[in-house]
């Protein structure tokens, strides 16, 4: 089993900042169109981080022109250019799916200080 961990460990990114559910983040994601490569920014609230090690992913939710959009990123993907934390949120649970049913004023998250 150690050999598997060894191979996985070599791929785990160490430059990922610390963030958790409730935080507002901007994910700079590399997109390849043919030969060209550009960076797309996806900004929203982190709903959850799941799995551990190489398989870890996180879900980001944003409201795009009135419609809720969620995107799941693999934390260790080489396509993630950088993750910027805009705001730390104060939430009581690790998975804030209740946010999906809320909108407007009730969907606000208090800032953690």
């Amino acid at each position, binding site marked *: 089993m150690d*050999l*598997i961990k*060894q191979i996985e460990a070599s791929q785990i990114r160490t430059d990922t900042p610390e963030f958790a559910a409730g935080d507002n983040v901007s994910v700079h994601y590399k997109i390849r169109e043919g030969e060209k490569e550009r960076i797309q920014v996806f900004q929203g609230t982190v709903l959850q981080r799941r799995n551990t090690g190489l*398989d870890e992913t996180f879900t980001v939710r944003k409201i795009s022109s009135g419609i809720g959009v969620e995107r799941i990123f693999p934390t260790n*993907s*080489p*396509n993630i250019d950088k993750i910027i934390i805009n705001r730390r949120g104060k939430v009581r649970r690790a998975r804030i799916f209740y946010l999906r049913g809320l909108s407007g004023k009730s969907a606000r998250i208090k800032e953690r200080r």
Partner: protein
Amino acid sequence: MLSVIGKKIGMTAIFTENGKKEPCTVVSCEPNVITQVKTEANEGYNAVQIASVEKKEKSSNKPEMGHFAKAKTTPKRVVLEIRDYDGEAGLGDSFGVEVFKEGEFVDVVGTSKGKGFQGVVKRHGFSGVGEATHGQHNRLRAPGSLGAGSTPSRVFKGTRMGGQMGNVRVKMQNLRILKVDAENNLLVISGALPGHNGAYVVIEK
């Protein structure tokens, strides 16, 4: 043909250059040793015998010890004969994962996991009866009809029925090598390989 004996360690995933996560299997290859070279003149055909995986001297018998001593090596657990070997074959030569390159396609031979005596639903993908009610009190996973009646008044050979499933020799073809780690004698091969973790597999080029 060039073959290397290895041991299946387990599965994981690797990120490729374009960011895709590719499922892969890790295989560890202890040094392989050529223990016998068969020639047309001596044995009537060309082949080499390779062996790998260390074995204790106390669990080897005298004929085995003598055979391995000829190749000036220690006793090995897995011994295999390869016909029409491509590489240079000298008695006692040792080789390992370095014969493979990244991106190369290989075949992998192994023994699949044994599933025991299985019915037609699991073994051949029959759909079963499909309904649990309307009189199907014990026919849920039954094969149904085995063929016509009076003509031919027998069951054709090869009709798919229940029986032993798995634990047979399986060759997976055209698997890509994702990574070669010569330092730790590891190969990372795209996709799944036959057998359980710890099973011996043969990687062929």
